């Protein structure tokens, strides 16, 4: 139900409704129970429901994210939300920005412009408060009858068995039990489930503290990202200013390890910091109101393995990241997407349980990559030794005049999807049929403009749906042959891509085909007539050929869903 008028998502609560499972005899059993309705659990539940899997989604609270927390949502996340039917709202509400400025002491040392890449629907990222993202996901959940979202249902016990797990759930009406074939633990960085099954994370805590303040002010200031190293209004530390919707500005103040978090959290101590920042800028007289603030110490850590039998971890429960580079929610949403289609195939008996092992095999290295990036940014922003600071300052100093030093300045690397290079689900390229390495097996499909059969302009990624897709370039007969060949395996959409209208052999009269309007599909996928890409439901490439036989496609599909008989020809 969409509420009328403006809603304050910060104070919004959702109703606890007693479930018939409470007190049921025998204990109710469900194919999948997702624990935690944060961005990751919500994404997973929606994706599963779109794959026709019924889901019970439990959350211990009845509210959205407290404070805004995540604000930067990357292009890949928006593309996933598009497939899940709620990307448009996020982009419409979010702030798009592309200019970033970096200051050292009190001088601007350079600025950069991350212009959106031409010919892709979504920008590199948007800024949007986490509570909006969660609210829009919850609204999407409400449209999907297969999801049973239960607020104020806290998991307090887990017992694992060979083919299911039993959860004990606390509610305002007292505890009850649930049996689940699979449990997805999306219960955040302090995961109770992780603790209950005796697992830990390991990693590094950064010995520093950050004051994160969301400030409401009407500012005549462009939507730009400003990052200061060692400014005179906040000496020896860094400061970040970023714009969110509703005239809310995110300000991060690095405080140092010795700061007292309880003192720093007090409004009377925060306000002078904000005033000092404003006084030092063109925004001198801005009136502001504190919306939310908190003091954090950041850590980068992860579980060694994400799958523990019938209990599978995704998002912050599996890996904690520092916010530099905005990788927490963004990578968690990719975890969810990776897990959803695999769980759907397994619970519907279309794929063996072992397919779920590949979730860990793919997402554990991705977490490693995110931690590496996040750690490097943190080390640049908060150097931990004198030498490290000397080099950091040398980079900043040089970047004033020398272009070469600017890429070394690391205020957080933009979150991009991991390439699943070592995945056992990939069919390697045939050695005698070379392709450009960019879109190699493991990479995520990249967007491009297309024209549909009915003449409408649209985007390539929009055409993929929730199942496997075969992109066939410039050969309708091949497309037809491939379509029939795999009907007994798993659903496959064959999408025939035709050369730009200038070409001699264009037919836009066939359904299920798109025209490569600007030639960008061919360019980005290194297509020749007869080339085929096989894409998984999460839009990662798992195989490609210059001209595959039907048997080659069948084998690649089997391999991608963990069935035997998937060795390449």
């Amino acid at each position, binding site marked *: 139900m969409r509420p009328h008028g403006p809603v304050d998502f910060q104070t919004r609560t959702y109703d606890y409704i007693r479930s018939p499972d409470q007190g049921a005899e025998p204990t109710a059993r469900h194919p999948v129970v997702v624990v935690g309705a944060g961005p990751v659990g919500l994404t997973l539940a929606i994706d599963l429901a779109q794959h026709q899997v019924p889901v019970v989604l439990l959350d211990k609270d009845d509210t959205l994210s407290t404070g805004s927390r995540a604000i930067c949502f990357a292009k890949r996340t928006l593309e996933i939300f598009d497939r899940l039917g709620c990307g448009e709202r996020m982009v419409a509400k979010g702030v798009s920005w592309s200019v970033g400025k970096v200051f050292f002491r009190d001088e601007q040392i350079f600025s950069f412009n991350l212009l959106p890449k031409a010919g892709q629907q979504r920008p590199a990222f948007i800024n949007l408060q986490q509570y909006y993202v969660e609210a829009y996901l919850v609204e999407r959940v409400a449209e999907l009858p297969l999801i049973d979202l239960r607020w104020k249902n806290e998991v307090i016990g887990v017992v694992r068995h060979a083919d299911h797990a039993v959860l004990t759930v606390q509610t305002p009406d007292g505890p009850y039990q649930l049996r689940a074939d699979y449990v997805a633990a999306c219960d955040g960085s302090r995961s109770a489930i992780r603790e209950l099954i005796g697992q830990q994370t390991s990693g590094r805590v950064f010995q520093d503290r950050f004051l994160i303040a969301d400030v409401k002010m009407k500012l005549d200031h462009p939507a730009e990202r400003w990052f200061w190293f060692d400014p005179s209004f906040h000496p020896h530390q860094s400061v970040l200013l970023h714009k969110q919707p509703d005239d809310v500005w995110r300000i991060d103040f690095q405080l140092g390890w010795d700061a007292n978090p309880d003192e720093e959290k007090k409004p009377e101590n925060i306000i002078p910091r904000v005033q000092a920042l404003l006084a030092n800028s063109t925004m001198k007289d801005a009136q502001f109101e504190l919306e939310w603030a908190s003091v954090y110490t950041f850590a980068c850590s992860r579980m060694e393995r994400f799958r523990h039998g019938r209990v599978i971890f995704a998002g912050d429960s599996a890996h904690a990241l520092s916010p530099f580079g905005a990788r927490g929610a963004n990578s968690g949403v990719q975890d969810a997407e990776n897990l959803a289609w695999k769980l759907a195939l397994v619970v519907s008996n279309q794929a063996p349980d072992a397919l779920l092992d590949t979730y860990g095999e793919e997402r554990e290295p991705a977490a490693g990559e995110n931690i590496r990036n996040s750690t490097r940014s943190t080390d640049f922003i908060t150097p931990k030794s004198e030498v490290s600071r*000397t*080099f950091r*300052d*040398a980079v900043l*100093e*040089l970047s004033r005049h*020398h272009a070469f030093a600017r890429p*070394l300045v690391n205020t957080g690397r933009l979150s991009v999807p991991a390439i699943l290079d070592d995945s056992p689900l990939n069919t390697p390229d045939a050695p005698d049929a070379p392709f450009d390495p960019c879109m190699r097996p493991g990479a995520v499909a990249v967007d491009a403009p297309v024209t549909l059969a009915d003449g409408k302009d649209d985007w390539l990624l929009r055409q993929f749906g929730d199942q496997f897709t075969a992109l066939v370039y410039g050969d309708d007969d091949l497309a037809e042959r491939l379509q029939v060949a795999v009907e007994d395996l798993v659903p496959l959409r064959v999408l025939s891509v035709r050369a730009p209208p200038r070409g001699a052999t264009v037919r836009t009269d066939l359904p299920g085909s798109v025209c490569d309007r600007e030639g960008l599909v061919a360019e980005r996928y290194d297509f020749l007539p007869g080339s085929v890409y096989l894409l998984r439901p999460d839009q990662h490439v798992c195989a490609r050929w210059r001209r595959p036989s039907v048997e080659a496609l069948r084998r690649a599909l089997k391999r991608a869903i963990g069935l035997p008989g998937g060795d390449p020809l």
Partner: protein
Amino acid sequence: MRLITEPNLTAVDDFYEALIDAHRDLSIGESQALNARLVLLLANHIGALDVLKEALTAARAGAVPGGP
């Protein structure tokens, strides 16, 4: 490419003099900062990570007791 450790400077004594001159009248801290900038400039000029890593290993060997 490999790190060149055979003589390669076009004018050894001129280079050495220029290096010491560049540090004239600087405090230790300022000198360290200069060295850091110098390393970064030279590293960018070299570009190749494998060569730079070889150089780092060779330089580090001088700092580790018992190193070659």
